[in-house]
């Protein structure tokens, strides 16, 4: 019998969403950099900012899972 908190499943789902999101951002940024290597610096900064916004959603999931395990 496996026991645990359903909040863990929620955190996992949030991680899936963020994984898809960050994967898209990273992939498209790579594409952009391959097309225009001279803009790589600016693309990377923009990529990190966008990734931070997406990642925040997954971290909200983690925080909720913390609160849920209590």
């Amino acid at each position, binding site marked *: 019998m496996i026991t645990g908190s359903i909040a863990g499943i929620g955190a996992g789902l949030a991680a899936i969403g963020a994984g898809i999101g960050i994967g898209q951002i990273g992939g498209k940024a790579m594409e952009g950099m391959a097309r225009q290597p001279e803009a790589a610096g600016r693309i990377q900064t923009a990529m*990190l900012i966008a990734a931070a916004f997406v990642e*925040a959603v997954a971290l*909200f999931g983690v925080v909720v899972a913390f609160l849920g395990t209590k």
Partner: protein
Amino acid sequence: MDLRPIFSFKKIQSIAFSAVFISMMVFSATAQVHEPVEEPSVTSSEMNAPHEEKEEDISQTILHHIADSHEWHFWGHGEHKVALPLPVLLWTNNGLVSFMSNKHDGNDHGTELFEEKGQQLVNFHGKYYYPAQAKNHHGAYVELDENSVPTNAKPLDISITKNVVSLFISVILLILIFGSVAKAYAKRQGKAPKGLQSLLEPIILFVRDDIAKPQLGHRYAAFMPYLLTVFFFVWLNNLMGLIPFFPGGANLTGNISVTMMLALCTFILTTINGNKNYWGHVFTPHVPWWLYPLMIPVEIIGLFTKPIALMIRLFANITAGHILILSLISLIFILKSVLVAGIAIPFVIFISVIELVVGFIQAFIFTILSALFIGMAVEEHAAEH
């Protein structure tokens, strides 16, 4: 992570920087390996306990490690505990009460009362409460709710805790480092940087050219002091949190109060620097007038969600990193086999190295988002839609 702006300075500078960075990695990695030495005393005493309870204990141990505390714990438990006691300051009904934390930490299960300045207090799991009228069924003078959280009234706790001491240490470090660098700039005007100055100049220029200028345009100079302070404060504390023993080890940037104050500083800066266009965008957005009842509340909520997201992002990233490292070490005790260490410890080292990068990226993200939000507030003309 784009390190090119940092490394593309003079060769000697980049070598010095990478030497420090790599030595930090190695230092943290070797330091992390020693951590299990501390753990067995925690878990070996629990070996006889039932299985479920033991797992609960491991998650309790992990949460205890990342939480704030009234003492700076080094190693050992019970009789053999080696810890640095820290002053406890409580604002009780009878005024300010102060004592060292080791005076009353013999019993933290709340079963004994102690008196300071005629005020009876009880220590329950490292926190100080006013005692309940009667003992509960565990013999403790606390009333617990259904989540085992005490509901007793508490005195206002303004103690110098582990996190506060860590904050003092990092602030003193920052003042020493940047005081000497600032003095060097004043003394060696027009000359090439030297020593610590040449280590920090590329990073300062990185903050100016890659964070402040693109987001704030020609008004960047006014916000550079704040951005530099917040960048180096967050970065230093992220790195200090990864050192598992004395001067480091406090989970300062993984404490939500600290990140809340940092985010609040950004919020205050954006609010007081917001110009006509910024507030116009909030209260008269470019939408048909009948959408105003919907849009204005959304825009007002948007003002607050930005700093809240800033707060949660830093807190959750650093806390999650610490929990990850401690969980991987705990695998050895969960699976009750020393052989697991062969897999767990290299993995811990790997995650520690990643955490060093995350520590830098989170400082960068916090600073660039602060600059972005301030930039939105001071923008001269409203963005075209």
